């Protein structure tokens, strides 16, 4: 029996066959992209260029060289935060961020960066007017905010925040790890200056690769230095040109091709995939809402949510609930704090954590109904 996989918010599964096929195809081509001019090396360079261009097109970047491939969203956020923020700068960050943001900022605060938090409402959503009030009192150099929460599912008003940031000459840095693939994204229209995204979540690509977008006007110091295969090899300094400046060392060609297949899938069928997972997530939300003793975290408006549902159950602790769902029903979920203690603190679940159901387009209505029934049974049994 196939497991009922509802841990798509951690990592999508099953991986689309086109992604697997591209990863395998990569190993049939020799050479190293950007290193050497023989036919296979150049072919690889062309493939990387194609994936970069298609990624830029999917997310509305004006120039493909502003799309940078990184080992993941965490690495991408580290790059932009450590590369942009300097001692004496001030950053305003939402109070519901993932550790991939809070931990780099904690370190930066030790190095002299001022970090202030934006409060959220009871559903984990940032309110633009609160940020507006803050900006009347304080000067900031950047606003940092998630695009959507990996705990509450709340979508944040990043376009409005970007407007506010730009009015005061600040930059808008967005953690899109959980949002990419799940919602339509036009980076330029949103006014985002820096955006990080996972390859293996909503996009359904391979683990180990993510995307960083940097606005052409944003000056960010690289995090890694080394060989790039181009530029002045005799120079002790790395090249300034994108993408090379941020992709030192040999990158994973296989993961790049896998990501490319995922991007292509979303370019061709994104609307259909989003509609399917959204419909299933609403079904799950409604079904779980009807169970006595279940509290759902995050907004009640389905339009304001990503396709994930986190719950706490009065009768069963989250760790036990996730364990029983797995062992008795073969349902994969994730319990705990989801690497987001800040979000759980704001939502009142820091002590217990929650159980998160991450819906994907490969789920079925039957699977969703089985999950609802399983939670109802376990809740009733206590």
């Amino acid at each position, binding site marked *: 029996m196939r497991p009922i996989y509802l841990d798509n918010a951690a990592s999508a599964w099953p991986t689309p066959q086109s992604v697997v096929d591209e990863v395998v195809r990569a190993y049939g081509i020799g050479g190293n*992209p*950007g*290193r*050497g*001019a023989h036919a296979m090396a*150049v072919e690889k*360079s*062309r493939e*990387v*260029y194609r994936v*970069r261009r298609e990624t830029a097109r999917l997310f509305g970047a004006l*120039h*493909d*060289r502003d799309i940078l491939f990184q080992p993941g969203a965490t690495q991408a956020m580290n790059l932009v935060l450590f590369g942009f923020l300097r001692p004496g700068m001030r950053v305003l960050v939402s109070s519901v961020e993932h550790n991939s943001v809070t931990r780099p900022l904690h370190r930066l605060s030790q190095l002299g960066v001022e970090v202030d938090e934006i409060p959220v409402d009871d559903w984990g959503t940032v309110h633009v007017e609160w940020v507006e009030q803050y900006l009347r009192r304080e000067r900031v150099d950047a606003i940092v905010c998630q695009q959507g929460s990996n705990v509450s599912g709340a979508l944040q008003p990043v376009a409005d925040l970007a407007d506010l940031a730009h009015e005061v000459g600040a930059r808008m840095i967005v953690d899109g790890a959980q949002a990419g693939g799940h919602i339509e994204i036009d980076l330029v229209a949103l006014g985002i200056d820096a955006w990080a995204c996972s390859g293996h979540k909503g996009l359904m690509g391979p683990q180990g690769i993510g995307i960083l977008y940097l606005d052409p006007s944003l000056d960010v110091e690289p995090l890694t230095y080394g060989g*790039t*295969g*181009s*530029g*002045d*090899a*005799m120079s002790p300094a790395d*090249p300034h*040109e*994108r*993408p*090379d400046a941020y992709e030192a060392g040999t990158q994973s060609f296989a993961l790049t091709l896998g990501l490319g297949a995922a991007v292509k899938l979303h370019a061709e069928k994104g609307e259909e995939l989003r509609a399917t997972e959204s419909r299933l997530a609403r079904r799950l939300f409604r079904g779980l809402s009807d169970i006595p003793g279940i509290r759902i975290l995050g907004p009640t408006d389905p339009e304001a949510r990503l396709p994930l549902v986190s719950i706490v159950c009065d009768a069963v602790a989250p760790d036990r609930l996730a364990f029983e769902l797995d062992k008795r029903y073969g349902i994969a979920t994730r319990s705990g704090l989801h690497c987001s203690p800040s979000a759980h603190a704001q939502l009142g679940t820091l002590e217990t954590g929650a159980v998160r159901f991450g819906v994907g387009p490969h789920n079925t209505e039957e699977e969703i109904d089985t999950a609802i029934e399983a939670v109802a049974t376990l809740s009733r049994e206590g």
Partner: protein
Amino acid sequence: MVLDGPRRVYRVWGFSSTHDAIAAEDALRSEGVGAITIPRPAELGGAECGIAVRVLDTDTPRAEDIFGRIEIRPRGSILMMDR
């Protein structure tokens, strides 16, 4: 056998990144300009590594127009004869 015919003249451009070289080649080819990538000649950067893009010199005006439109700035060019 040695062919005794006119030798062709090529224009070869260097770029600051592999990305720009591939982007240039892609744009040239998509507009029907016969372009190939070659190892970057020493004259275009001493000991630099990387690739360069070569077209027939008669296509140089078209190529430069295309570079301007796609906002790619080569880092220099040389003329090269075939052998």
